């Protein structure tokens, strides 16, 4: 009986893991994975006439494990990748470093419950909520109490500081919200496959409404210490199901990776 149930779970797996990739460019009104049968109209607008992105959003790329195309393994789902050209333009020394870091998942700072950083937090792979106000847009992430504020009312970055999620200043280009992120530290990775950056990372995020239930997310990464040129990742964000609410996710390093031997009490 247990075996039959298990087989059912495994048969369902492909449907559960339907993914979006670099090539998945949504069109207005496309079927929505979290809202089947719902016809999406245009993105609502706020009083100032700009798109109102408020709501709970979720990617489904499986890029959390590896941002480039990769095969699956136990507990490590394969994914189609979100990187333009499926290749990160590493400098030679950086590529060697990446390969070294990739040898153990325990090297990943997130495996020790540190914040994922930007853009990784966007595909963490948990949902996040956008709360839009006139001067600030707040992004509240379910993963590990992370939050960011996109400052529409400030045009210059903070100086003399670096943080896990950086400093985000934002402006609108037509209906696209452009978020410029600097002041990032070098303590975060981009995935669980060793892909990394330095404290010179500069991320430009673009949130473009497709319809009421879809945002097209694009991030350009520049880092003169690690990459040979700027490169892009992109994927859709889907509006989560009705009644979906964020919950607490408190990451406990004592029960995270590498502490298995202390598992059985």
């Amino acid at each position, binding site marked *: 009986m247990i075996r039959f149930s298990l087989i059912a779970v*495994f048969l369902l*797996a492909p449907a559960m*893991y339907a993914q979006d990739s670099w090539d998945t460019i949504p069109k207005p009104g496309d079927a929505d994975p979290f809202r089947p049968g719902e016809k999406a109209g245009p993105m609502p607008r706020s009083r100032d006439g700009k798109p109102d992105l408020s709501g709970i959003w979720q990617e489904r790329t499986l890029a959390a494990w590896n941002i480039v195309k990769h095969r699956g*393994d136990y507990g490590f789902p394969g994914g189609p990748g979100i990187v333009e050209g499926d290749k990160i333009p590493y400098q030679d020394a950086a590529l060697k470093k990446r390969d070294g870091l990739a040898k153990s998942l325990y090297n990943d700072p997130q495996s020790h419950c540190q914040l994922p950083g930007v853009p990784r937090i966007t595909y963490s792979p948990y949902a996040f909520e956008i709360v839009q106000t006139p001067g600030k847009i707040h992004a509240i992430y379910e993963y590990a109490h992370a939050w960011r504020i996109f400052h529409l009312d400030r045009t210059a970055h903070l100086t003399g500081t670096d943080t896990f999620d950086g400093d985000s200043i934002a402006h609108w280009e037509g209906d696209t919200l452009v978020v410029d992120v600097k002041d990032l530290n070098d303590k975060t990775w981009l995935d*669980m496959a060793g892909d990394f950056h330095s404290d010179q990372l500069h991320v430009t995020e673009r949130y473009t409404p497709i319809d009421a239930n879809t945002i097209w997310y694009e991030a350009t990464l520049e880092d003169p210490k690690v990459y040979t040129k700027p490169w892009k990742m992109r994927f859709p964000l889907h509006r989560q199901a009705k*009644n979906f609410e964020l919950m607490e996710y408190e*990451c406990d390093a004592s029960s995270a990776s590498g502490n298995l031997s202390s*598992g059985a*009490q």
Partner: protein
Amino acid sequence: MKTALVLAVTIGLGLAVMPLLAHHSFAAEFDGAKAVDLMGTVTKVDWVNPHSWIYIDVKSDDGTVANWGLETGPPNVLYRGGWRRDTVKPGDAIAVHGFVAKDGSHTLAARQITTPDGRKLFAGSPDNGPKQ
């Protein structure tokens, strides 16, 4: 209540991919080719990220009792999958299907847990887009 330890190696199921969670190395810690069915009595339930734990006392055929740690999905994923705080509690007799730890410890990556009232609940992480 008779408790039993049954080893059932089911290599065939190994083709499917069942993600546990971000920041976890299933392949490094567990043997995906060694599926095990255990029955035991719950001693402790710990709803914690990135993985919740259920501990059970398992009695072997020779009468010895070992405490096993069952690694399950994160609390939010379990909750959205229908789990509640009292779904299993200390004293409950449960059955579990999962994969054994490579280090030989009494640790299992739980896939399915059968509750005292007979419900069979998925205990891992269903996917990266939990649905209501």
